[in-house]
């Protein structure tokens, strides 16, 4: 699939600000960070999870534990997608039972990834709550799922793609709306 960049909606600084704001909202809403843990959805959500945990650490003085979740094996479209999904290892080194888990991902779109992530997460234990933090909410939900913390709401058309690029994976930080060619 060929993509052409159309509009840059967040630059490095704006991404940082959005993450910091979400960290403040998390601390404000949950009061205490003693019992929270952040689980990012691989690949980019995992890096955002790390950044969000660091930001919560700066705000609250204590950095919550971070894990990374691979949801490939839980996808509902395994037999349909043309590009083969690659299985990566999930890295959650703490017990999630009883904790408030904040799922972190880059873009919230149809909600299907989050549905998979909820299934995957619950196989690891029984959190007291699961909340969702996303850098970009682009709308077009196909399931009854919503985010608790949103970096930026962006109205999009279905033929557009929201690309979150991060220094860890793409060499630089930016969020761009692209057009399918």
């Amino acid at each position: 699939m060929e993509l052409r960049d159309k509009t840059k909606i967040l630059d490095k600084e704006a991404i940082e600000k959005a993450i910091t704001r979400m960290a403040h909202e998390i601390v404000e809403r949950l009061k205490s960070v003693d019992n929270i843990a952040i689980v990012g959805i691989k690949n980019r959500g995992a890096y955002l999870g790390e950044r969000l945990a660091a930001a919560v650490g700066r705000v609250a003085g204590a950095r919550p534990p971070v894990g990374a979740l691979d949801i490939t094996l839980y996808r509902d479209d395994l037999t349909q997608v043309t590009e083969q999904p690659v299985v990566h290892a999930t890295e959650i080194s703490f017990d999630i039972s009883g904790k408030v888990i904040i799922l972190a991902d880059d873009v919230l779109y149809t909600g299907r990834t989050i549905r998979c992530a909820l299934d995957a997460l619950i196989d690891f234990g029984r959190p007291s709550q699961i909340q969702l933090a996303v850098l970009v909410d682009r709308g077009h939900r196909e399931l009854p799922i919503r985010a608790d913390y949103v970096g930026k709401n962006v109205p999009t058309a279905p033929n557009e793609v929201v690309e979150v690029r991060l220094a860890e994976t793409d060499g630089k930080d930016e969020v761009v709306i692209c057009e399918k060619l």
Partner: protein
Amino acid sequence: MNNKIAWSKKDLLGLEYLSKEEIEFILYTAEGFKEVTTRQIKKVPALRGKTVVNLFYEPSTRTRTSFELAAKRLSADVINIVPEASSVSKGETLIDTGRNIEALKIDIIVVRHNCSGAPNILARSVKASVVNAGDGWHEHPTQALLDMFTLKSKLGRIEGQNVSIIGDIAHSRVARSNIWGLTKLGAKVTVSAPKTLIPEGIEKMGARVTNDIEEALEGADAINILRMQFERDTAGAFPSKLEYFKQYGITAERLKRCKPGIVVMHPGPINRGVEMSSEVADGANSVILEQVTNGIAVRMAVLYLVSHARKE
């Protein structure tokens, strides 16, 4: 490691037919499944709604159980077909059996057969995926993959390692698959056994051959000790079990002269006091039980990949 590779093979028939990249991709995918096997809930829905048939023409407990567990942990349904109890004993051919099984709308056939090449024939006759669980003296690809997976997790990498395979090379599909896989990944392979158990032309596969066990052990980073099949193929190739143990058996004494961190593998079941002493089998260098554990992750990866093969 190139993650962009697309797995395009509907079958796993042998490591001879795979590229270096494909073997590395299976081992990488198995890492993800290894994590699944350590969870409290050791089950993922990746093969939900798929059916796996274990078709074993030769007796096998560990390989069949390992495949069965692998399939179940992927949420597939599994049935076992025991040929003595089925129409095979009434004279049905392998191809007919395969087509009849396929007519039951199954997705993967895991086959073990005493004839070399039987899985290849089956794979050509059915649309379902075929996974070779050992055919004659030909290949046992998942065993070699789990050996390499274990080796990689112990030594960090496979390239450049000296791996010696000791024992009945002539009648061993495990040896053949290991030689294919290890040489493709850049390991230096040595095979060692009495002359009667070294097949002609094995050096053409890229393995160094020596009848001297000390030479095979010197400088080895890992040894893979094969089972002496005294109950069948090996009989007659060597005077007695004791004689074999004296000349080729791996003892603590012999291990002392090896590299300190040498990895000791065995595909099981072990003949204690024949291929190796109990001291070695249960010793600090032995990874034999880890091999069994890793086998499930590797077989999960194989079942997952063949059932989601993409068109080339």
